[in-house]
């Protein structure tokens, strides 16, 4: 099942090996500096930078394309709207009230590149970093918030537990559905009301079973002396390497180039 694998594509590449903290900071900064671009050289620079990130990651293009699917409508829609409703300069094409001007076309191309670059960059992060690494990275980056009594550690732990539980519960759902079908339950036909009734014998055992697992896990954690963040040691340790510094430096360089080239 797709759910178990997630979006992560295991490959051996320099992007995969980057520290998740570096990638998170990098993507965060990138999403901001994308808005500096406003002419051909700056947008071209962004496109090249993003494309080289994709190339370095060794991730097959079809995964990137799949990541774009949910926002494809947005991109097409934005393109069409901006192309048709920016009326500046001479018309390239006219049909009734529809009018495509060169300025409108260029505007549409720019906005589409911006959206594409934003989405490809964030998709690349989740394609090259496991969710558990992202969780670890976020926990460390946000740890200063602990001083404000924000439960950073608890959030990271809850995310990790939820990730561990999803495949188990998917399996359990399938099992219960089969068991109830064997007892004569109908999940795939009938009116909406009838089906809403049919899900009750599916959901109640699913929830009760999940609570039982939760109870056992909580008991096991406390039996092993879990007391929250205090005095906890880690199995997975993050290590900042030279390549992580290189990533952030290249983003700084890119920012400087964008500021210099923008019109």
């Amino acid at each position, binding site marked *: 099942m797709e759910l178990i694998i997630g*979006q992560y594509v295991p490959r051996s590449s320099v992007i995969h090996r980057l520290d998740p903290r570096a990638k998170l900071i990098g993507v965060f900064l990138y999403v901001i500096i994308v808005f500096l671009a406003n002419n051909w050289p700056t947008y071209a620079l962004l496109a090249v930078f993003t494309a080289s990130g994709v190339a370095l990651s060794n991730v097959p293009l079809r995964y990137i394309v799949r990541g774009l699917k949910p926002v494809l409508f947005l991109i097409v829609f934005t393109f069409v709207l901006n192309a048709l409703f920016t009326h500046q300069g001479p018309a390239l094409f006219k049909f009734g009230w529809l009018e495509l001007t060169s300025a409108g076309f260029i505007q549409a191309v720019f906005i589409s590149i911006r959206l594409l670059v934003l989405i490809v960059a964030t998709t690349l992060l989740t394609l090259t970093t496991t969710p558990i690494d992202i969780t670890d990275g976020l926990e460390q980056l946000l740890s200063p918030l602990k001083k404000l009594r924000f439960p950073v550690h*608890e959030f990271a732990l809850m995310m990790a537990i939820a990730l561990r539980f999803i495949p188990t519960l998917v399996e359990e759902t399938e099992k219960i559905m089969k068991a109830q079908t064997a007892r004569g339950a109908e999940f795939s036909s009938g009116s909406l009301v009838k089906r809403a009734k049919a899900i009750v014998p599916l959901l109640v055992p699913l*929830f009760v079973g999940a609570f*039982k697992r*939760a109870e056992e896990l909580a008991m096991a954690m406390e039996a092993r002396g879990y007391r929250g963040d205090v005095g906890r040691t880690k199995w997975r340790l993050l290590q900042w390497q030279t390549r992580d510094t290189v990533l952030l430096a290249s983003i700084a360089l890119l920012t400087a180039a964008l500021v210099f080239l923008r019109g």
Partner: protein
Amino acid sequence: MKIKTVDLVLAAVYAALMAIGANIAAFLPPVQGVPLTFQTLVAILAGATLGSRIGALSMIVYTLIGLAGVPVFAGFSGGPGTIMSQTFGFILSFILTAYAVGKIVERREHPNLSAFLLAGVVGLAANYITGTLYMYFSLKLWINAPMTYGAIWVAMIPFLVKDIILTFATVLIAPQIKGRLDAVRRKQPMPVGGNPSSRSNP
């Protein structure tokens, strides 16, 4: 903010149940073109059975694992790009739904069916109002789409009908599930080897 271990695990489990609820359509065929998702149902149950604080927490965890790239949102989607999708408001609204439902159920020590019903309706309203507002503003601000707020509601009617029916089903099973869950939360023993000062001697 101190969270009990059992609450922490339960919030995580609810986040996982939410992921199942969002994608249960993979097992069930759609009804008249509307894919069956149980997100509203799970969000209402989270508030009704875990309470406002832990319930909202579990929905925040769900949103975060989705944004971190796990395909837990409806249609096996996920990743930070989801923020740009017009339906992200519905995902955000589940936090509010769980919180509102929890607040209403918590007012009484032994909530009756009508308290659960009121909570369910308020939760559903929170879900749809937040979701449609986000959709309206995201269409308006990002792509300047000529769509009125009313038109969005019209587009949402088939989903709303499905969720109203599911909300009634939820209200009916909520007391049963809450009873089971309260038993789990009460049963938690004193942590072994925990802080000795918190241990009381009879």
